[in-house]
């Protein structure tokens, strides 16, 4: 389940994600957008500058799967579990 966070409690990066229609998942501590098939973990968002986030948002996702921005990169089994949760 995604959660929309009020503007006055968000960092700049979170504002950017919200403007790009990303929603936050409390349990997985990640922002995601089904339309772009991308997800960003909170740790990744906090560790990267605004420009890096904007570049990541602009990156095309040509694959059929999801692109998850996390360090370290989670294995596909974890991504599948995450997707099952947000789609369930």
């Amino acid at each position, binding site marked *: 389940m995604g959660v929309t*966070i009020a503007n*006055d*409690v*968000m*960092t*700049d990066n*979170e504002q950017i994600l919200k403007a790009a229609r990303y929603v*936050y998942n*409390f*349990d*997985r*501590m*990640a922002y995601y957008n089904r339309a772009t098939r991308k*997800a960003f*973990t*909170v740790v990744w968002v*906090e560790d990267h500058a605004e420009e890096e986030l904007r570049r990541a948002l602009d990156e095309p996702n040509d694959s059929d799967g999801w692109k*998850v921005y*996390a*360090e*370290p*990169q*989670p*294995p596909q*089994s*974890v*991504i599948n*579990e*995450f997707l099952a949760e947000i789609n369930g």
Partner: protein
Amino acid sequence: MDSSRTVEDRLRAEYFELLPDIRRTLLETETRVRRDLLDVSLALERYERVLVTSRIKECDSAVDALRRRQPLGLFVAERALEYSITALPDLAAVRVMAFPERRVADARDALRQTLSNWKADPVPSGDGDSAPLALKYFGKWSPDGNITAEVQIVSLLIGLFWEVEHSAIYKPNPNLHGVVRSNSVIQRRDEVLSALQAFESAFQEAIRSAAHRGSPPPDPAP
């Protein structure tokens, strides 16, 4: 161990296997800290405090803390054997809270030798320029020990505020750690901490002034 168990089940089993070690580590940490603080504690004025609290991280809290460190907050079942509760640096934790601030410095000095080989990880102030809000140290009492202990030294008012904040916000929902780090919440929290620091400084200054004038501070209310 049974490979069919979930990662969480494995970690819970590991936790309870380690619990006697965790208890011993906590006992040793608290005893050593109290021993080092004895002279400071005996020299306290009536209005001064040095409190030592200790806690063992609860099982579910430990498993959850380890899970939240993983990408997307999920364990990888195929890597179950790679996870260990012992990766957590605060299974056994002791907090020293002192009031007023000069007693925080005394506590730090008293513990300096004992913690000299431990890893220091101070909690920075909100502005990043002032003195750290708290001193945190991680370490083991023996090289072959498997439990890392944490010792924290903090002013009494800030330590108590953190306890209230933890009980009210994080303990019921640990995943709020991610959201509560947002800018405006951090700013409000920094204001609370600054106010508590200002109060402690003003209190200490009032005591100094009273002592300078020759009038001892009044007894605290019963």
